C-alpha cells in the first residue's frame, strides 16, 4: 500500500546501492526530480534500465551511479548524442559501463513479461540483426544474455524470446495521486504501468496530490496497493513535460548538448544543479 512521503525519504527507502532501477517515461513524464535525488544520495553500482536513457541517465552515468545500462535507444531526441553515455562506453569515464542492448519492441515486451509474472516474452524481432549476439558481427562474443530463439509448438515457426525484466525498483512520474496513494497519469503513457507492475518496489513522483481522481481520457490508473511510495514533486519531470501542466523544454535539451560534451563543465553542472540544490 502506497506511503505518501517526501521524495528524499522515498528514494532513501527504495533505492539501494547495487539495485536494478528502471526509471521510465517515454519522452513524456520522465522522472528527473527522482533521478536527481538518486544522484544526490550518491547511489552506486546501479543497473540502470530504461528504453530511452535520455538526459536523465546521461546525468546518472556521468555522476558515476551506474555499473550497467539496459536500454534500446540512447540519444538526445532531436539533438544528437548523449555525451556522458558515450564517454562511459567509448572511454570508460567515470567508470566502465556494461551495456545490455535491445530494440524498443524487445524492451517493451520484457517489461510486459515482468508485469505478467512470466519468465519471458515472445515477439517477431531481432532476426538477422547484430543484436542477436552480445558482441555484434564478426566477433565470437558470448550469446546475448536476454535474447533466445523459441519454436512455436503449433506451426514450428522460430520466434524470438526475450527474458522478463523485474527491476528491484521502478521510478515513474505521474500527473496526480489522490490522498490514498492511487496514481493517475495520462497522455503518452508509454511503459510506466508495466514498469511499476514488474518491479519489486516502486516510487511515483506526482505533480500534485488531490483529494480524489476524476476519470480522464487516455488515463492509466495505478491503484495505491501496487505502489510503494508516492512523493509530491511539482515540476518533477522538467525538462521533459507533464501534459496538462507544462511543456517540454526543448531549449534545455539543446543546451544539454554543450553542458554534457565536456567533463569539467558537466562537473560544474552537477555541483550547481544537483549537489548545490536544496533537497526536495
Amino acid at each position: 500500500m502506497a506511503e505518501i512521503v517526501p521524495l528524499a525519504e522515498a528514494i532513501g527507502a527504495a533505492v539501494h546501492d547495487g539495485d536494478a532501477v528502471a526509471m521510465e517515461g517515454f519522452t513524456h513524464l520522465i522522472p528527473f526530480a527522482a533521478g536527481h535525488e538518486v544522484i544526490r544520495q550518491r547511489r552506486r553500482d546501479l543497473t540502470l534500465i530504461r528504453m530511452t536513457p535520455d538526459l536523465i541517465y546521461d546525468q546518472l552515468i556521468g555522476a558515476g551511479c551506474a555499473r550497467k545500462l539496459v536500454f534500446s535507444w540512447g540519444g538526445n531526441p532531436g539533438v544528437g548524442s548523449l555525451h556522458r553515455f558515450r564517454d562511459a562506453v567509448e572511454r570508460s569515464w567515470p567508470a566502465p559501463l556494461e551495456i545490455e542492448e535491445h530494440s524498443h519492441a524487445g524492451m517493451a515486451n520484457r517489461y510486459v513479461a515482468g508485469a505478467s509474472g512470466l519468465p519471458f516474452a515472445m515477439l517477431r524481432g531481432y532476426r538477422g540483426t547484430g543484436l542477436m549476439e552480445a558482441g555484434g558481427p564478426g566477433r565470437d562474443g558470448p550469446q546475448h544474455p536476454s535474447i533466445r530463439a523459441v519454436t512455436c509448438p503449433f506451426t514450428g515457426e522460430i520466434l524470438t524470446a526475450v527474458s522478463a525484466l523485474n527491476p528491484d525498483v521502478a521510478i515513474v512520474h505521474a500527473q496526480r495521486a489522490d490522498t490514498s496513494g492511487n496514481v493517475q497519469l495520462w497522455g503518452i503513457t508509454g511503459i510506466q504501468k508495466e514498469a511499476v507492475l514488474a518491479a519489486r518496489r516502486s516510487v511515483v513522483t506526482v505533480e500534485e496530490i488531490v483529494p480524489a481522481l476524476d476519470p480522464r481520457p487516455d488515463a492509466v490508473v495505478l491503484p495505491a496497493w501496487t505502489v510503494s511510495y508516492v512523493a509530491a514533486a511539482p515540476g518533477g519531470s522538467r525538462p521533459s513535460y507533464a501534459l496538462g501542466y507544462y511543456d517540454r523544454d526543448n531549449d534545455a535539451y539543446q543546451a544539454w548538448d554543450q553542458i554534457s560534451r565536456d567533463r569539467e563543465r558537466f562537473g560544474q553542472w552537477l555541483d550547481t544543479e544537483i549537489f548545490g540544490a536544496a533537497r526536495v
Partner: protein
Amino acid sequence: MSEHPADYTADEIMTVTAARALRDGRTCFVGIGLPSGAANLARATHAPGLVLIYESGTIGTKPDRLPLSIGDGILAETADAVVSVPEIFNYWLQPGRIDVGFLGAAQIDKFGNINTTVIGDYSDPKTRLPGAGGAPEIAASCREVIVIVRQTRRAFVEHVDFITSVGYGSGPGSRERLGLTGAGPGKIITDLGVLEPDPQTCEFTATGLYPGVTLDQARERTGWDLAAAPGLVTLPPPTATELAALRRFTTRAKE
C-alpha cells in the same frame, strides 16, 4: 503548374521527394526528423488521409506543427487513439498493419541493411551511436520501408559495421529465410536522388537524380559500385506549393 524555385536546401528536396512517395489513405510509421517532416508535408498537400503513427503510441495524429520529439504533447492531443508502448509494437506494428515505415541510418549497405548502433567494433567502438529504438521491427514488419539518409562515402558502405535493421540481408531470399514479413526497403532517398533495389539482385541502384546531379557525383559518394537503373530519370524539384507548406511547418516548430 507551379513554378520550381531554384533555392531550396538539400533537406527540403529530400523531404519533398519522400513526401511524394506517400500515397493518400496509407498508414505510415514515422520517426523523428526528416521522416516526420515528409509525412506531415504529405498530409498537408496531396495525402490528407495519410495516417501517421508514432512509436510513442499515438495513432492517426494530426499535428499542426512539426513535433521535436516522437512523444510531444501535440501528438497525443491530436491523435485518433493513444495506446501504450507495448501495444503500439505488438498490436499495430508487428502484425504488418502498417503500410510504410520511415527510417534513417548512420551506415547503409548495398542491400539496404542499416547501422545505427556503433562505428567500429561493438565492444570497443570508435563511435557509439544511439542504437536500435523501434527500427529493427519497423524494418521487419512494415509492408514497405523508405530510408532517408544523406549520401556520403562514410554512410553508403560496402558492409555496415553492425546490422541494426535488416534490409535484404545478404541478398535475394534472405528476408524469407529470416521470416521477416514486410517487403523490405523500397527506396533510399538521399540529397542526390533516389535509389531502389534491383528486382533480381536486391542491390540498390540509382533510379532518379535531382536536377543538376550526375551519376558520377552519386557514384563518388557511394561505397559500392553504384549502377544506374534502366530508365534512370531526373526527379522533379520541389514545387512552390510544396516548399511553402513545408516551410510553414518548420517555422511553426520553432515558435
